[in-house]
C-alpha cells in the first residue's frame, strides 16, 4: 500500500493540483456569475453602452 503510494507520488500530487485548479476555476466562474460580473476583463467601464446603464 505504502509502496504503491510512493511509486505514484508524482501522479497523485499532480492530479490533486490539477483537480484543485479545475475546482478553483469552476468556483470562480460561479462566483462571478452570482456577482453578476461579466467575464470580460474590464467590466462595465469599457462597454460602449455603459453610459446608458450607469447614468452619471
Amino acid at each position, binding site marked *: 500500500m505504502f509502496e504503491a503510494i510512493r*511509486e*505514484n*507520488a*508524482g*501522479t497523485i*500530487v*499532480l*492530479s490533486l493540483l*490539477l483537480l484543485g485548479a*479545475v475546482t478553483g*476555476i*469552476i468556483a*470562480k*466562474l460561479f462566483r462571478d456569475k452570482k456577482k453578476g460580473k*461579466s*467575464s*470580460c*476583463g*474590464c467590466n462595465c467601464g*469599457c*462597454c*460602449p*453602452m455603459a453610459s446608458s446603464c450607469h447614468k452619471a
Partner: protein
Amino acid sequence: MVTNRFLGLPIFAAVMFLVYWIAMVAVGTPATDWVNDNLFGDGYHLFGNGAAQYEKAAERYGDTDVILSAFAEQYGIEIDEENPEASLNALLAAVPEDAEVTYITQDEETLETEEHPGTGKADLQAAAAEYLSTEDGYKSGVGAPDPAAYGTWVPGIPALVESGLDAINAADWLKGLILDGIIAGVGAVLGFVPQMLVLFFLLAFLEACGYMARIAFVLDRIFRKFGLSGKSFIPMLIGVGCGVPGIMASRTIENERDRRMTIMTTTFIPCSAKVPFIAMIAGAIFQKSAWVATSAYFIGMAAIIVSGIMLKKTKRFAGEPAPFVMELPAYHWPTLGNVLRSMWERGWSFIKKAGTIILLSTILVWFLSRFGVADGAFRMLEEDELELSILAKVGGWIAWIFAPLGFGTWQATVASITGLIAKENIVGTMGILYGGTKTYANLAASFTGIAAYAFLVFNLLCAPCFAAIGAIRREMNNAGWTWFAIAWQCGFAYAVSLMIYQFGGLFTGNVNIIGLIAAAAVLCVMIYMLFFKKYQEATKLTRKV
C-alpha cells in the same frame, strides 16, 4: 477629406487593408506561427542561433527517411535504429539495380499527400549515405538532423513539460491529459495573443485619433441597406483572421440592434483557422482548385448580406430606427498610455478566458475522445481506437441529422463537433478518422464532390468555435441572444448546405425527391424573406435622444 462622398470609401479601404495587413500578415502571422510552431511546438533556436544551419541540414536531408522506409517496406527489411549500418547494407544488397518504388510525402498542415514515382536504386544509395552521414557541420549523428544539435536550442513547452512529467514518473493518462488535452488546447488559443494585441493596438489608435467615428459615418449608408451599422465592417474585416477579436471589435458599435446583428453575422466570414480545412477539401476532392477558397469567402459575404436582410425583417430586430447621431471629434494624436491600456485590457480578458473556460473544455474533450468501452471494459483508448470513444458513439447517434446534406457519417459528424472546439480541429480529426497518410484518397472515396462542398459550407457557416461562442456570449451578455445566434448560424448553414446538396443532385443525377422538396421549400422561404416580406420597422422616432 475622409468623409468625402467619393474619396471616403477608397481611403477607408486602404486604411483597413493596412490595419489588416500589419496585424495579420506583417506581425500577426509570424508571431502566431512562432508561438504555435516553437513555444507550443518542438522548440526553437534562441535568437535564431543555429536555425540557419539546421534548415540547411534539413533541406539536404530532404525526404531521406521516407525514401528509406518505402524501400524497406517494399523489400521486407526493417531498418534497425540501433545498428543502422548493417540493416542498410542488407537493404542495399536486397534491392536490384533496376528497382523502382513510389514514396509518398505529406504536407503537415493540410495533410496533402504527394507521390514521387520512379525512385531508383541510386536514390536509395544517396538516402542511405545521408542517413549514415555524421559529417561535421551537417549533422552529429545518424538519422534525421536533430534541431537541438545546432546553436542554442530551447525546447518547446510540450517538450519541457513532458520531460518534467517523465521525471516525476507520471501515469500515462495524466501525461495525455496535460500534453494532448490542456497544452494542445490552451496553447492553440494563446497562439492568437500576439496577433490580437497588435490588432487591438491599431484599433485603439484608430479609435482614439478620431478616425473610427468617421469610418462609421462613411459606411453607414451602405451597410444600413442590409441591416448592419457602418461600424460592422471592422469586425468583419478582423473576422478574416479570427472570429474572437472580430466579435470583440463589435464593442465599438453603440446601437444594440446593430451590434447584435454584427455579432451574429461576423463569423460567417471564414477565419484563418478554417483555411487549412478549405485547403484540405479543395486538395482532396476538387484537384486544388483555387475557386474553392475564393468561393468560401464569397459565400461568407453573401451569408452576411442575406441573413442581414432576413434578420432585419424579423420581430427580434424590428423597432425604432436607430438614429445615427455621432459626434465627430477633431483629429488628434492619442497618448501612448491610453492606447496601450485599451489594448491590454482587451487582450488580458482574452488570456484570462484561455485559462478558465477553454481550459475546462479541453479537459472535457480530451476525456470524451480518449476514453470509451473497448473489449467490454471502459478504459483509456489507444491512438487508433478512436472510433470506440464516447465522442464517436455520440457522433454515431446524431449522424443521421446530416444525411440530407450528404455527409451523414460519424466521422464527418465528429469532425464537425470537434470543429466547435477549434476549427483547426476539423483537419486533425479528419486526418485521424480517415487514416493517416491516405487521408486524401480515403476522403475522395467517401465524399462525392457535391457532398464535400456541402460539408465545407456547413462547417464554414455553422456555429463558430467555443472561443468565439464564448465571445458571443460575453458581447451579447445574454444567454437567450447567444442561443438565438447559435441557432440562427446552424440553421442557416443547414439550409444552405441542404440546398447545395439537393440542387446539386439534380445535375449529377442523384435525386432524392423528399430532400428536393425540402430544399425547394427552404429556397422559397428565403426568396420570400428577401424580396417580398415587408420591414416591420417603425418609421417614426419616438425615443428621446
